[in-house]
């Protein structure tokens, strides 16, 4: 079973529909027990960093997320679900986040006034090495992004994919051990996004 972590911060409809399209059994849940007994765990991206952290703390899911990672369960973060895995975000005047991955989340500050914030749309992801979750997906494929903040992990070995926007080259895919996290939304990225989710569902975390 794939557990999709529901932290009551927003809309998980498109994540649910993407797994339905693939014919995969995904359960949207806030239950720590269910999350820790799942074969795969998805941590989707909804809301802002501060409110996401607050609800995760209220639901006592911060430790659950750390355990998922440390127990070796294949684990995927999406968008804000990637950002709050880092240590700190510039959002809302600064928020301390979960801290599984060393690094910061920063606000785009474009020099060109026609580089708009948020970044909305399809941008390419350059892979630094091959990874099972990207099986069958060409390097520099386009995925759908919607975000104003971007992740900057401090350890280069955590960076799997990179994307350029508004004068910044940022880590659009982070990977470490059984964790892979995307700044883009695979659930809204058409056939290629579905391929990525399908790959994840077959990945054993190694």
């Amino acid at each position, binding site marked *: 079973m794939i557990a999709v972590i529901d932290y009551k911060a*927003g*809309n998980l*409809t*498109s994540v649910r*529909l*993407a797994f*339905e*399209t693939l014919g995969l059994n995904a359960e949207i849940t806030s239950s720590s027990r269910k999350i820790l007994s799942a074969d795969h765990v998805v941590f989707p991206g*909804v*809301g*802002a960093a501060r409110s996401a952290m607050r609800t995760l703390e209220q639901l006592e899911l911060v430790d659950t997320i750390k355990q998922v990672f440390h127990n070796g369960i294949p684990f995927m973060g999406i968008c804000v679900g990637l950002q709050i895995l880092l240590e700190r975000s510039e959002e809302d005047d600064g928020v301390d986040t979960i801290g599984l991955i060393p690094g910061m989340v920063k606000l785009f500050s474009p020099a060109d*006034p*026609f580089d*708009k*914030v*948020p*970044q*909305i*749309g*399809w*941008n*390419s992801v350059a892979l630094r090495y091959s990874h099972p979750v990207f099986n069958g997906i*060409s390097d520099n*494929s*386009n995925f*759908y*992004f*919607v975000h104003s903040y971007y992740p900057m992990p401090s350890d280069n070995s955590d960076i799997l994919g990179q994307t*350029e*926007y508004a004068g910044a080259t940022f880590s659009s895919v982070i990977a470490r051990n059984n964790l892979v996290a995307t700044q883009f939304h695979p*659930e*809204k*990225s*058409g*056939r*290629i*996004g*579905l391929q990525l989710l399908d790959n994840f569902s077959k990945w054993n975390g190694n």
Partner: protein
Amino acid sequence: MLTKRIIPCLDIRDRKVTKGVKFQNNVVLGDPVELAARYYNDGCDELVFYDITASSENRRIDIEMVREVASAVRIPFAVGGGISGLNDMHDVLFAGAEKVSVNSLAVRKPDIIKEGAKAFGSQCIVLGMDPVRVNKTEQCPSGYEITIRGFREHTGIDAVQWAKQAEDLGAGEIVVNSVDADGTRIGYEIELTRLIAENVGIPVVASGGAGNPQHLVDVFTQAHADAAIIAGMIHTGEYTIRQIKQELALAGVPVRQEW
């Protein structure tokens, strides 16, 4: 590099896709879910549905249709027209739409933008605007005035000032639909689109007037639009999305070509 988005627009009447000129002489083009799936497979980057009401008499939003579209396509889509408040926004977004577009409602009640952004996030709230060219006056210094109710009513509101206000209120994106260009197929209103794009920090979507691929090249390169809405030129079968994207790529405009 971020690519420019091509967004087919589907105007819905009584659960059929229609196309008219300046909101008149509508002809029926087909089933919305089938057309959405076709354009998705053809490589459109997003979709937008307008006036998605269950029937002309019963002006409730057709949530079942939103659900069907959400099951049929795996790209973002927006729903506009007929949104009457936060409850409608919630229902549309939780049925699977990525965004809701507010137009006349936001003019009457600007705080709906703020409330929507607070409840669902700015990225979900699109301001749609229908500006018409007017003489520059003290009240309308940009020379473009906002109209509402399908161009029927002038508001006296300046388009640039309204765009800035909507950004401040928390809109995530602005669709600029030129009344003068709508349905003409002689090209987007470049001056208007550029004026809005220069004055806000959020993405701007050009709408109204697309008749051939060169019109999209022009609005991307001259007006700095982030996305462009197309309708008639693909609904008639005259162009495919792939053809349009090929011509854009030849002109040096970044577009998504693999899907």
